[in-house]
């Protein structure tokens, strides 16, 4: 007896297509929501980073400088006990500590650049910033590399323009955008599209999890937790480091006096 197999008859096809299109539209919404969420989190974390670097990071570098100064005198004392004169010892020690000094300077440079970046955003008006964000969102939804027709290079360009507050570039990209949405909607193509979307959702969810395990996220959580208890832990931390610096600067001035440098 011949078994009757359900085939892709012209009657079944539109139904399957409709279902697939529905699923695709749901996944697209989910992906867009995820992209929004992750990008918002990145913005939040960048803000935490900027706040931390300005309020605390710089102080740690200052602390490192003072520590280095103390280490310098410790080493000089050691060399003097081995028969070196103060000047000779100082020369030797400066040379050995040069690398460390460079490390600290390098870190300062990074912070300076970051602050310059912050400064450069001061000139942007509230309206422009709103448009910047709106445009960026629109273009990110289109070009995000996790989207089916995504474009990594374009996304980088968009992010760069957004980070630099370059509204003109975003406008230009938006206007030149050509609609490439004429798709041949075969069942196969729709299935592929759906699979691609699932893959993107997985990938971006993983990135999201990774971000949530980052140090900056942990800091953000702690700042928020403390805020609920009306505490500002960044200021508390800054005060603690400032107190450390003051204590050690005292020690350095004592050492300088001892060697007639004060």
């Amino acid at each position, binding site marked *: 007896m011949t078994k009757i197999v359900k085939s892709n008859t012209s009657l079944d096809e539109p139904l399957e297509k409709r279902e697939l299109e529905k699923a695709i539209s749901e996944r697209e919404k989910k992906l867009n929501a995820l992209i929004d969420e992750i990008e918002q989190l990145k913005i939040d974390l*960048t803000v935490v980073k900027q706040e931390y670097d300005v309020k605390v*990071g710089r102080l740690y570098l*200052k602390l490192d400088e003072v520590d280095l100064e103390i280490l310098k005198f410790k080493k000089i004392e050691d060399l003097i006990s081995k028969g070196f004169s103060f000047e000779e010892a100082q020369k030797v020690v400066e040379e050995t500590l040069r690398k460390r000094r460079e490390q600290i300077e390098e*870190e300062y440079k990074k912070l300076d650049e970051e602050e310059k970046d912050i400064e450069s955003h001061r000139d942007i008006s509230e309206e422009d910033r709103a448009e910047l964000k709106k445009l960026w969102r629109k273009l990110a939804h289109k070009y995000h590399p996790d989207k089916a027709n995504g474009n990594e290079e374009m996304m980088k360009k968009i992010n760069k323009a957004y980070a630099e507050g370059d509204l003109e570039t975003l406008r230009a990209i938006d206007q030149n955008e050509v609609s490439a949405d004429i798709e041949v909607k075969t069942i196969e193509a729709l299935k592929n599209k759906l699979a691609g979307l699932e893959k993107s959702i997985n990938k971006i969810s993983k990135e999201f999890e990774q971000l949530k395990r980052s*140090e*900056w996220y942990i800091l953000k959580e702690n700042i928020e937790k403390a805020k609920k208890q009306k505490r500002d832990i960044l200021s508390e931390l800054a005060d603690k*480091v400032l107190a450390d610096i003051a204590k050690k600067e005292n020690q350095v001035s004592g050492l300088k006096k001892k060697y007639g440098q004060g």
Partner: protein
Amino acid sequence: MDKDKQIQKVSKLSLEKLSEDSKLVKRGLRDLNVWPKIENIFNELKENYQAGFIDECIKLCLEILNTDPNHFFTLCYYGRCLYQKGEYEKSAEYLTKCLDEESNYFFLWKFRGDCYYKMKDYEKAIEDYKKSLALDPTNAATLDDIAQCSFLLGDFKSAYDYIDQAIQIEAESDMPMIRKAQFFEAQQQQAKALEQYKKTLEVFPHSEYARNKILELSNL
């Protein structure tokens, strides 16, 4: 220092940048007691090292160095752990960094000497072992190391001199006495070697190695 500087709410949107600049934030998290303090990790490192868990030690070293790349004793441990993982060149590099900082620790010279030994650069190894010995003159293990390097370089007189010094000093281990017997063996002086193993067994009656060697050489 303008610590209350107004923060502008803008994003640079770079995840890479966020993860690459984690050194300063880790310090803050440690000081806020959110992240384990360096001293605690360092204690954990010491315990793991004693227990011989080298892979764990390397992980802990990197954890500390990520926040404080100049943490001296961690650098020492890291150098030694790399040696134990067979990464002799990298180990020597880290130990050199430590020695640049502090040249008064005998073990650092010895550790770097061990690296050169494994890299078969016996001359450099001897140089380091001698510096170690100058700081810790009664270290039989270092004397043994110099003896071995001298032997491998063909300077047999120095080899026997150093190993005799080690034998004089060492009261607890049979190693220097066995080493001397091994030198004789390597020079095909089986009778002298047998005699040396017998002497070893007299001084260290529990020396299994010497006992086995006596049986082996007596049968020849």
